[in-house]
């Protein structure tokens, strides 16, 4: 029985470059081929056409898109060669003065090459077009990612160009075991996605699972790596990130050495590290560039920051609303004194202050950095001071929310930090309604949610639950490198031990 294709899908299917039913470019001859290309690329003012007459008198036309091609190379090396070379030389691949070239016979294939920075040569009486790789567009230099700064170690980051990003990985892992699997996604606009992995480490089953999920992605175009996460992760309704993201090649290379898969997207500097677990979001590259004792202490503080960021306001609200008998007298008296002029109950205070802080975050992020700093100072100091002076919020609450905000930023992964910002509001509400029991029930629901999450089918809360003691050395603390023998079990690596293996 013929599979029923929805109308929209039928329409876009004809546009897919992979579709074998794409019209032959040269059916009807040279003039027809030119007409087809012109028609397909009508209203594209960036399309440049250059007519040539080859040695032997044949007519030819060069097509390229302005801004995607290196004009210097084109003018200096290719144009002169094409005008001077006999036709027999042109048909011999070894004599062409370019590193990469392709033969295209379909209209869709030829058009796609143009979009990827190729120069297309259409010659009279030829049954195919020649596409020369002369890519040359404005590219950002290798800069350290703004959100993943490092004190020691490398200071370069991925760029928007897939080729550059692949090269950055290749430069760090000079081994033939590093493989790149390219797939094209997007029904209307093709986007290149690259799966990088070490063949002798990455679990083939997980890799196949990921490929299968990517194959099911149904979008017009894939603009950001997070689209892939949202469409392929097991739990799309969870606020927690299920894939780790990074713009750092060193972090991506380290992930590859753990047996994980790195997903790169052409046009985006971010990459996805898959699978991921909860504790990996608290690891920073700097942790591995210092003494393990210091790194462990800092890692432990970061984990503590998670508890503070999620639970501190809720705990304060619960204690002050229901369980003030649990507060020592010496602390209770100043707390009561601070709250005597405040008309709002603790929960309203907390929500009000948290709301103000969220607004300050959003304003600071959207504005240029120099204005962002001013907003931070105005928001943090001026508004905070004024709110306390006006008696709307107590100074203790300002401290609590301030500590919460700082703790939130101690988390290296931005996406995890966002999830934590979101999750503290429902727990605050439960604490306000049911006190410490509300906090515990909220915490239990949160923990249950985390325990049920999976990343590419692997348990998210490992190595704590399921308990994998050999991987605890890089969870709450960063153990000495000599003790980091076992690779994380969530990646199910083909070689479970680092270095020469188990000694």
């Amino acid at each position: 029985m013929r599979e029923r294709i929805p109308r929209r899908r039928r329409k876009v299917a004809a546009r897919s470059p992979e579709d074998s039913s794409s019209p032959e470019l040269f059916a009807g001859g040279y003039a027809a081929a030119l007409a087809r290309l012109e028609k397909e690329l009508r209203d594209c003012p960036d399309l440049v056409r250059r007519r040539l007459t080859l040695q032997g008198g044949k007519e030819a036309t060069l097509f390229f898109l302005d801004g995607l091609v290196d004009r210097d190379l084109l003018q200096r090396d290719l144009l002169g060669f094409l005008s001077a070379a006999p036709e027999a030389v042109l048909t011999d691949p070894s004599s062409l003065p370019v590193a990469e070239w392709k033969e295209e016979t379909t209209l869709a294939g030829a058009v796609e090459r143009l979009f990827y920075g190729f120069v297309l040569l259409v010659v009279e009486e030829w049954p195919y077009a020649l596409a020369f790789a002369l890519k040359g567009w404005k590219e950002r230099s290798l800069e350290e990612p703004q959100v993943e700064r490092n004190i020691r170690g490398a200071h370069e980051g991925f760029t928007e160009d897939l080729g550059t990003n692949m090269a950055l990985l290749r430069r760090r892992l000079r081994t033939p075991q590093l493989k790149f699997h390219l797939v094209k996604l997007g029904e209307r606009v093709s986007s290149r996605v690259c799966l990088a992995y070490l063949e002798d480490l990455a679990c083939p089953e997980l890799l196949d699972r990921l490929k299968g999920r990517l194959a099911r992605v149904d979008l017009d175009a894939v603009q950001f790596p997070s689209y892939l996460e949202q469409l392929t992760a097991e739990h799309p309704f969870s606020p927690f990130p299920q894939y780790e993201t990074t713009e750092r090649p060193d972090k991506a290379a380290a992930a590859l050495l753990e047996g994980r898969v790195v997903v790169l997207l052409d046009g985006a500097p971010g990459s996805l590290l898959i699978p991921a677990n909860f504790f990996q979001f608290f690891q920073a590259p700097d942790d591995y560039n210092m003494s393990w004792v210091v790194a462990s202490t800092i890692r432990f503080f970061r984990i503590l920051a998670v508890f503070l960021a999620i639970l501190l306001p809720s705990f304060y609200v619960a204690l002050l609303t229901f369980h003030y008998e649990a507060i020592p007298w010496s602390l209770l008296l100043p707390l009561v004194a601070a709250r005597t002029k405040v008309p709002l109950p603790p929960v309203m205070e907390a929500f009000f202050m948290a709301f103000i802080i969220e607004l300050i975050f959003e304003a600071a992020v959207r504005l240029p950095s120099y204005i962002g700093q001013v907003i931070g100072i105005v928001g943090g100091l001026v508004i905070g001071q004024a709110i306390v002076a006006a008696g709307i919020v107590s100074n203790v609450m300002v401290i609590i929310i301030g500590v919460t905000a700082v703790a939130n930023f101690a988390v290296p992964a931005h996406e995890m930090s966002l999830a934590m910002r979101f999750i503290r509001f429902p727990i605050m509400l439960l604490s306000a309604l049911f006190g410490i029991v509300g906090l515990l029930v909220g915490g239990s629901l949160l923990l249950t949610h985390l325990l049920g999450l999976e990343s590419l089918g692997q348990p998210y809360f490992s190595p704590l639950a399921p308990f994998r003691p050999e991987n605890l050395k890089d969870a709450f603390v960063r153990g000495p490198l000599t003790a980091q023998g076992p690779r994380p079990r969530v990646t199910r690596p083909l070689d479970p031990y680092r270095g020469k293996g188990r000694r």
Partner: protein
Amino acid sequence: MADAPRHEITPGQLVGFLISSQLGLGILGLPRYAVEGLGHAGWWLVLGLGLVSLAGIALITSLGGRFRASIVGINFTILGKTGGFLANLLVFLLFLASSLTNLAVYLQTMRIFFFRETPTWVLTAFLVAPTFYQITKGLKVIARFDTFVYLALFFLLAMMATNVAKAEWSFLFPLTRFRPENLAGLARAAMGVAFGFLGHELLLVVYPWVEGEARGPAFLAGGVTALVLTSFTAFAVAFFGEPFLSKQVFPLLGIVRTWQAPVVDRLDIYFLMFWLPAMGAGFTAFLAAAQLIAAELFPRLSYRLLLLLISGLVSTGALFLRDFDTAESVVQMIAAVDFFGLGLALPALLLVLARLKGLGK
């Protein structure tokens, strides 16, 4: 076994699952029941029932090892279609009753210590929510959650260790002299103490979901529970003395209220923060067992719909057990039936029948 991925648990997780289901709620009133039966030597009763619980574990693991199936499958194999269905229905109802009593005790504790004014239905819905969510995720997530019970256990042991100086150990002497008049109440006390050990019969349901050897971990869990409950009972007698202990509704919480530390003063709220999830874990384990049996008995019904029905039934039932004395009597009665009936008699009977009929390996 279409649900296998979400129900399979490791032997290590089985230990946490069994300990949390036995300890969380069972420990609350246990010392009081023990001294009501045997006076100051009540800890012997706890130890004795601990050994009975281990015997139950031996029977259930033998049965499970023989058939490698849950009690539902075993009943059908041994008792046939009709007999098996009736037996399974009875087992299901007993687990349902156990989850009801667990919820009732949980609610009573919350009412006494935190929510005197909150309407019972609000409290019930609030406390059932995490359990409901956990069961929708499956046995695997429940067992992972239960591994955190070790934190609660650590706090319990820390509390006992730091309060050792406050205990009067001579209250335990003479160690082996039981007052004759208490022998008559021994059976009643055993019913109360049985509630403390309620949980080993969960093995009947979860046994086939354990990936690997279950016998050793089950014995370990039973041994740890017996040790903790016995030592805590002895500690409670030494802390309060027999007459005062028999007046304590929940001796554990009574001791916790006296626990103090420098700077923060009272530690009871922090102890409860760790113990409350353990209390919830007991209720969750029984409701999950009832749900698993129901899912196996009625495979055509949706898992979530069944869970909704069962949770609704248990929650409604708990609303009728608002009176503490009534609730306590019901809890003791059901605990005794479950402990001795489900945890001992049923596996023993099924083992005998299996051997007579030559069924299983």
